[in-house]
């Protein structure tokens, strides 16, 4: 097991890339701690799978290095990296039984048969397929096959990392939850480094200790779920994480004040006078609806989603959402959205801007 470091890594599928946009992965430096449970979260086409395949050695990067522990493995084939990977769609060896499928990676490494038998039994229990061990894999359903793929990914104990590429896509929702819990347990038990690719934020946030949010070939932020929520480093993270996502407004910022059109919004710290495209963002959780203050909005509708209520409104052409607890009653004539100053983030050209040093309140 080892720490995984990506050093100035980038990838393009083109022979002669002209500019940044031709890169599927833009140059990045990332470190994955040994034994961490990570999620790689992003919309489809953002480069998640490419990044995963570069780490596992299925794809050679156009530039940069992949380092496991202290060893540069950029040129090492998968076998030498000692990595396990589970793919989006089930890959099983049709002509083998479930048992042979699970034993396959171990047999290829020449492990002792008794140990193989024990280990296979153990994994079969985890994926809930003990009863079907001696069936041929061919006739099984798609989710049973995917469970076998997961099992094959987890069967080796000595791997440097286990990579999951949207492994639960074909699994039905109930089983999804169960398998994810199993993966968590396995992680706690064996302490493998795990990297889990998904486009589903719930999956990412419940599985991982740290989530990397990817956006147009970049890692926009790598942080705990709490950090992604409270301090998104990029407007994309703010918008992508949370339900509904962060409210974002074009604004002018001057010291401790932001202005949205004619409306003045107080900030909790001094942000100086940033140049470029300036936006302020506030989570719906920290947005209240009041009779005055903040910005005027047109209330469109109120959605009851169980534990809380989502209020959908508009300010000009911009959507404004607020999450109200059920006790909160919407006062008659409340037409203004008011923001908690401490929770407002300032973004310049998409990236979070910290307050000016020493000036914070």
């Amino acid at each position, binding site marked *: 097991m080892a720490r995984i470091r990506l050093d100035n890594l980038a990838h393009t599928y083109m022979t002669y890339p002209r500019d940044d946009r031709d890169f599927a992965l833009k140059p990045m430096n990332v470190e994955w701690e040994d034994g961490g449970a990570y999620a790689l979260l992003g919309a489809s086409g953002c480069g998640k799978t490419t990044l995963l395949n570069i780490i596992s050695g*299925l*794809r*050679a990067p*156009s530039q940069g290095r992949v380092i496991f522990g202290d060893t540069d493995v950029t*040129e090492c*084939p*998968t*076998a*030498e990296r000692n990595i396990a990977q589970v793919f989006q769609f089930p890959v099983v060896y049709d002509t083998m039984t479930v048992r042979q499928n699970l034993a396959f990676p171990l047999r290829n490494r020449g492990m002792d048969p008794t140990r193989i038998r024990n280990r296979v039994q153990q994994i079969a229990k985890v994926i809930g397929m003990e009863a079907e061990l001696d069936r041929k894999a061919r006739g099984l359903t798609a989710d049973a096959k995917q469970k076998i793929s997961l099992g094959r990914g987890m069967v080796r104990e000595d791997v440097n990392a286990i990579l999951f590429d949207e492994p639960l896509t074909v699994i039905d929702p109930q089983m999804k939850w169960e398998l994810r819990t199993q993966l968590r347990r396995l992680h706690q038990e064996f302490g493998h480094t795990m990297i889990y690719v998904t486009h589903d934020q719930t999956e990412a946030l419940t599985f991982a200790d740290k989530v990397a949010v990817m956006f147009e070939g970049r890692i926009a932020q790598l942080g705990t779920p709490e950090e992604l929520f409270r301090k998104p480093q990029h407007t994309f993270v703010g918008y992508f994480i949370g339900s509904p996502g962060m409210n974002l407004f074009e604004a002018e910022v001057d010291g401790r004040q932001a202005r949205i059109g004619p409306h003045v919004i107080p900030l909790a710290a001094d942000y100086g006078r940033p140049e470029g495209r300036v936006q302020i963002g506030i989570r719906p959780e920290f947005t209240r609806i009041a009779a005055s203050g903040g910005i005027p909005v047109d209330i469109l509708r109120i959605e009851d989603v169980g534990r809380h209520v989502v209020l959908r409104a508009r300010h000009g052409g911009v959507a404004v959402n607020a999450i109200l607890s059920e006790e909160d009653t919407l006062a008659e004539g409340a037409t203004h959205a008011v923001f908690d100053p401490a929770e407002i983030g300032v973004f310049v050209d998409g990236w979070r801007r910290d307050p000016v040093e020493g000036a914070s309140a």
Partner: protein
Amino acid sequence: MTRPSPNLTLAARQRHLEGKGTGWTVTARVTLAVYLLFLMVPIYWLVNMSFKTNTEILNFITLVPEDFTWDNYTLIFTDPTWYMGYVNTLIYVAINVAISITVALPAAYAFSRYSFMGDKHLFFWLLSNRMAPPAVFALPFFQLYSSVGLFDTHIAVALAHCLFNVPLAVWILEGFMRGVPKEIDETAFVDGYPFWKFFLRIFVPLISAGIGVTAFFCFMFSSVELLLSRTLTGTSVRTVGVAMTRTSSAIGLEYGTLAAAGVLTIIPGALVIWFVRNYIAKGFALGRV
């Protein structure tokens, strides 16, 4: 572990990661090259001979014609018993392709979309005709077509070849049609298209690749067959194959002419393959991959 040097191209580094070292690649390339050589040398020998004089063929083994000549080709293009052989062959092959595709299209559609009484048995019976040895049918065909006055006509050979080409066409087309989602048919019917209009205007263009492949196979199997075409033709519709076999059994063999005639039969096939090259593999798998 050997490491590739860092200035290798991305593609080379990718191959290295995939474990396709130079050893494997070289073995594969050499095997393939040797096999292609095995395929091409006999054809080359035929081409080589077609440009030689009979004296050179019979007396010397030369890898390239020493006494290069077009005479063999000139003879074929000036002697009607030769060149009419090509014309006759092309005529019955064309008729056969047209008939096979026309009748096979609706049938393949029926097999791919509907289940009906006896469909499986019918399909198997059709296929069984593809499996029938032409030798079994040679004599009965001769008698049948003689009795209806079709002996020694293009249509007789074209119809006889339908025996194996129609089942084949149904089979290939059915494979391609299976790949077209049924929703397309249903949408068209909901939109009020009558069946034939839908079939000709919408469906047929959708499987044009499949039709091309089918035409290729019908062309091929009709033009390569000798036994039936020889049995069913006499003096007025003499085919190339017949002309060639009669030449080879005659006294005083003109090997050069025979070779030139052979080369000329290969050319149309080679051209047609080039046009369907992107579908060859799928076509030979009968659209079932």
